[in-house]
């Protein structure tokens, strides 16, 4: 058995209210490619952030043993000194700078006050050759495609003398061809003795490239699968590990809700990327949702779900949007801007509640009324008493835990913030609610309460579209499920026909077919 390069022992990491990692054990052998797989939010990225020192020593429990020594990293620099280099999912390159400048950013050649540009570009060219790029290191990053930018990231990591390279979803923004080239490059590095950890959702790639696969679920390592055999391990085998959790009563039953006529109908909806208009982010999607129905849209991150919802919600995302919308049977054109969508009784509860959902510096009261100030004001003058009463009503209805509705939203827990966000949109009195990841990052108890709210909405005759990347949630809550991958709907299922395995299989098939 080869030498163990890295061992992470009993790692526990808690965030306020959430246990992100629970007693995780993780071993990597020298010279192997080790894959970490799991659903979104399972704890893979957290684990890697602990390893690379983004979460410093002391903010977690447990030990990191690297190359036989216990390590106490207090920042990324410390881990990079030992050759542990992480390449994040989002490219971290400055577009306006050259490849060479980017590669040595924060790691400049020569003296701090006298950068040696000759050495910089000469060394950069050397590493670019290693990753198979023929571009000059003096090319600006914005002039090369995403595939090549990913290679620049790897070259940058190599320039830091990486011994253990961590790649977080390296192929998520690449096309099939570039992805394959990248994976082959990884296999080439392995021959030269490099150790790598790859995080990926694309199980076919994992099966192709990895020697060992560790499955992470709910903040714990579930199992480690050996993939040294002649036959690559089957994707079904990996899926079983990823989703095989018990499902007992995590979802409240929705009983006796009559499903009515079609409320929202979207046909041949196509949306282009706002910055790269040649790219289709949503591709010819057709869907409908009825009164009192909860429709789930399942897809991995980057499948185009948020983009679909936001483009329907007053074209708040995308360009060159084409397709037809019907509300309650009548064709409608929604003008650009959320205000017109709200007038058409559509609400979009954002995925990122802190980033674009709530005004954290304001009170619960102010946030609750923000999308529907008309209802509590006359001639643009707000009736403060009425506003208070409304905020109070929703606090009680949604059981938001807070001493008073004058409390700043920034001081609430994630689950309670989510309730305020829901309250805001419920107060806007929509008929159609687009919920984007309504339970992301909140604990199990709060999730259950949110599910109850969703059931109440359906019971009140609202049409609910629930976007989620958590399969059990989609299965447990939806009447009908659309499956989305790479901008397209690749399947539609009734809840009773859907299983985790057949949904995953649909996504994998469509990915391979492309």
């Amino acid at each position: 058995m080869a030498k163990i390069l890295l061992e992470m022992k009993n790692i526990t990491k808690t965030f306020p209210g959430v246990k992100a990692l629970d007693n995780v054990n993780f071993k990597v052998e020298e010279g192997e490619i080790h894959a970490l797989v799991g659903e979104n939010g399972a704890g893979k990225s957290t684990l890697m952030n602990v390893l690379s020192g983004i979460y410093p020593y002391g903010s977690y429990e447990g030990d990191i043993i690297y190359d036989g020594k216990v390590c106490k990293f207090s920042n990324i620099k410390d881990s990079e000194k030992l050759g542990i280099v992480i390449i994040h999912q989002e490219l971290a390159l400055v577009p306006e700078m050259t490849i060479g400048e980017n590669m040595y950013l924060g790691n400049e050649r020569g003296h701090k006050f006298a950068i040696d540009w000759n050495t910089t570009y000469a060394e950069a060219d050397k590493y670019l050759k290693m990753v198979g790029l023929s571009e000059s290191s003096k090319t600006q990053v914005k002039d090369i495609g995403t595939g090549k930018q990913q290679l620049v990231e790897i070259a940058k990591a190599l320039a830091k003398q990486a011994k253990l390279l961590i790649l977080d979803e390296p192929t998520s923004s690449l096309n099939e061809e570039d992805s394959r080239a990248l994976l082959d490059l990884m296999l080439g590095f392995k021959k030269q003795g490099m150790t790598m950890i790859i995080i990926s959702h694309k199980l076919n790639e994992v099966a192709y490239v990895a020697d060992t696969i560790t499955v992470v679920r709910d903040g714990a390592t579930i199992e480690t699968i050996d993939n040294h055999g002649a036959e690559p391990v089957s994707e079904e085998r990996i899926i079983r590990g990823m989703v095989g959790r018990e499902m007992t009563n995590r979802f409240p039953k929705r009983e006796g809700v009559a499903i009515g006529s079609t409320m929202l109908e979207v046909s041949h909806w196509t949306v282009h990327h706002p910055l790269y208009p040649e790219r289709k982010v949503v591709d010819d999607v057709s869907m409908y949702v009825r009164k009192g129905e909860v429709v789930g849209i399942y897809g991995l991150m980057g499948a185009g779900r948020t983009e679909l919802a936001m483009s329907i919600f007053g074209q708040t995302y995308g360009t060159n949007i084409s397709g037809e919308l019907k509300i309650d049977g009548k064709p409608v054109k929604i003008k650009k801007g959320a205000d017109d969508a709200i007038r058409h009784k559509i609400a979009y509860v954002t995925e990122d509640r802190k980033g674009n959902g709530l005004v954290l510096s304001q009170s619960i009261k102010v946030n609750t009324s923000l999308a529907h100030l008309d209802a509590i004001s006359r001639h643009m003058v707000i009736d403060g008493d009425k506003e208070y009463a409304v905020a109070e009503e929703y606090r009680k209805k949604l059981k938001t835990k807070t001493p008073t509705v004058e409390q700043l939203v920034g001081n609430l827990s994630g689950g309670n913030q989510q309730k305020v966000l829901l309250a805001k949109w419920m107060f806007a009195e929509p008929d159609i609610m687009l919920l984007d990841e309504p339970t992301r990052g909140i604990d199990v108890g709060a999730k259950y309460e949110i599910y109850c709210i969703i059931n109440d909405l359906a019971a009140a005759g609202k049409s609910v579209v629930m976007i989620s990347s958590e399969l059990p949630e989609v299965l447990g809550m939806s009447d009908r499920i659309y499956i989305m991958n790479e901008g397209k709907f690749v399947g539609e299922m009734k809840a009773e026909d859907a299983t985790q395995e057949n949904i995953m299989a649909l996504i994998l098939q469509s990915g391979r077919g492309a």
Partner: protein
Amino acid sequence: MSVGAFFQKYTMVIALVLVVIFFAIATGGNSLMPGSINNLISQNGYVFVLAAGMLLCILTGGNIDLSVGSVVCFAAAVGCVLMDNKVNMWIAVLAMLGIGLAIGIFQGFWIAKVHVPAFIATLSGMYAFRGFSNVVLGGFRVDITNEQFLMLFGGGRDCYIPDFIRQWTGTTGKPNLTCLAIGGIAILVYVLMTVRKISVQKKLNIHQSIPGQIVTTALISGVIGFIIWQLASLRGFPTVLIWIALVLGIYQYITTKTAIGRHLYAVGGNEKATALSGVKTRNVYWFAYASIGLMAGLAGILTAARAKGIDPVYGEGYEMDAIASCFIGGASAYGGIGKVSGMIIGAVLMGVINQGMNMVGVDSNLQKVVKGLVLLGAVVFDVMSKRQKR
């Protein structure tokens, strides 16, 4: 409320009280005499007006308007030249307000619709309108001789509300009864509003410290009462105070009671979330800059009236006084946080320090150092107290 929280909430009020006491002692009580209080108001009229407008800009996300000093001078220059050419005073007044508003709308257009950074759009305005002022004035001072204008906007010794009550009753002497009456009514309205607020809180079952509110109301009433009494015992109610009170009242109302006020705070707090809530966020910026333009026009009127004319260098540095008042008064440099009441405290604090140092005879260069340190101190405190919370 704990002692720490109390100090945190009322730091600037406490600082103001300490500064007032300090200068009262240092000047042997002179700083609290009727003349000093009168001067404090007359001299700083433009600060209150500009800071009110500036507060809205800062609320949208720490954006500032650097052009107001130049706009004050330009608007005043046009008005003075008009009056110098025997144009009706009211047309001149409307011209000054109109010019301010038009400039505000013009700059707001670039900021809101073309996404020019506010700093740059207003910096260019700062240069351009200073230049225009010089052109309009031909490089020379223009005096105002229109007595009615001076009277109405508070320039010089006789610009006070006449004592109607004593005229009517045929008595003479001090104190100024009209001034006392106005002050008395103001305090009464304020007290009644607090009573109503407390009763609504009781009805809605909002738990707020009622004794605390009563004490606050009593203290503020006492301060207003003292100022009114001192003013009445001198010459009465300076006319400039009417305009200050009007502007502060309107801005207090806008920020607390109206939808556009709410939108200002929301845009500064989280622009994306606000846009997704159906608010036309760019129009909110436009509103803020149009409003400060109008205020610059009004400040131009007050400045010209106070100086009985306009010089091409008037208004220089006014933008900084307004910005400093807002930040000292607790407005966040990142937007979304700030109150008219805080801004008033900030402006008064700056005014008191200025006047106090003048009376004590501090070197004018040193005065700038002190003002700079006060501003830095206030913002450092703001940043630190927020960091503790995290």
